């Protein structure tokens, strides 16, 4: 009972706006600390790979970006379902606010993968199942953004993109299992397989740090966009009016 009460409270746009505003400075500080740790670990302390030498260091941006591209989509799809069933405003805002940063991470996964593929595999791009399905994900993010901007009424727009996000969610297991279901040039999973990860511990720790840093960045970007979106949607409400008066009095 307590929890639902709390959730209802935080799910009100005004409370969410203030809550994010309080969290953001701390999250940004933490992001830079974790990022510095991850970069130092990945570029300096991690040993070179036995096969790939230093080229494998691209893993520290490529893999976290690829994980984020999938994770953000899942967050979007879950919020899309919540938005459609319960009509919770915050969920609508999270769906659209995640799309931009999700598209950015997907783009990064593709570009850094290409920069890794050229020296190691011998090609910038190939149409194997993993690469193709990740490209489809990028287009999904793009269509969600385009569809949202095509509607004048943002609540109708949210409904439309929620449905599209749920239609596209099938692509997520396809991306993840593509390397298992089909022959691909891309290798199999390293960290997320069920037995122990097949990466040396000194190489794994910076990878997890970078993944944590990228997660923090997602949270930061999401909160910033969500705050902006809330202000735009609630522009005529009393609390926004108060907020404006307060800031103009300063």
């Amino acid at each position, binding site marked *: 009972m307590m929890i639902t009460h709390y959730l209802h409270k935080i799910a009100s746009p005004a409370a969410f706006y203030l809550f994010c505003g309080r969290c953001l400075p701390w999250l940004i500080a933490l992001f830079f600390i974790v990022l510095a740790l991850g970069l130092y670990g990945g570029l300096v302390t991690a040993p070179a790979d036995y096969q790939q030498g230093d080229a494998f260091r691209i893993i520290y941006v490529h893999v976290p970006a690829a994980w984020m591209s999938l994770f953000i989509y899942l967050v979007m799809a879950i919020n899309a379902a919540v938005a459609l069933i319960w009509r919770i405003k915050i969920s609508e805002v999270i769906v659209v606010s995640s799309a931009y940063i999700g598209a950015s991470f997907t783009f990064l996964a593709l570009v850094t993968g290409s920069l*890794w593929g050229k020296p190691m595999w011998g090609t910038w791009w190939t149409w194997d199942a993993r690469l193709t399905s990740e490209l489809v994900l990028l287009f999904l993010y793009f269509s969600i953004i385009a569809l949202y901007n095509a509607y004048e009424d943002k609540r109708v727009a949210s409904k439309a993109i929620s449905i599209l996000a749920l239609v596209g969610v099938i692509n997520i297991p396809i991306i993840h299992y593509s390397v298992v279901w089909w022959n691909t040039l891309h290798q199999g999973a390293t960290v997320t397989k069920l037995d122990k990860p097949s990466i040396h511990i000194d190489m794994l720790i910076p990878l997890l740090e970078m993944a944590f840093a990228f997660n923090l960045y997602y949270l930061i970007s999401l909160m*910033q966009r969500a705050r*902006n979106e809330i202000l735009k949607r609630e522009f005529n409400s009393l609390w926004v009016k108060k907020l404006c008066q307060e800031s103009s009095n300063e």
Partner: protein
Amino acid sequence: MNEFLTMGGYGFYIWTAYGVSFLVLAVDALVNRLQQRKTLQNLAQFHQTQHNPTNILDEH
């Protein structure tokens, strides 16, 4: 130091990958900041004048 920059001959690929990554994140952060500022300006204007509630918050 030079060894660090050349990365065993893979310097170009590694530094481009890291460079693009941080460029994209920095642009995202900048866009968020500019949008937030624009919204706040529009809102301040709107609540000062209090007329014509439509169009004022158009995105573009």
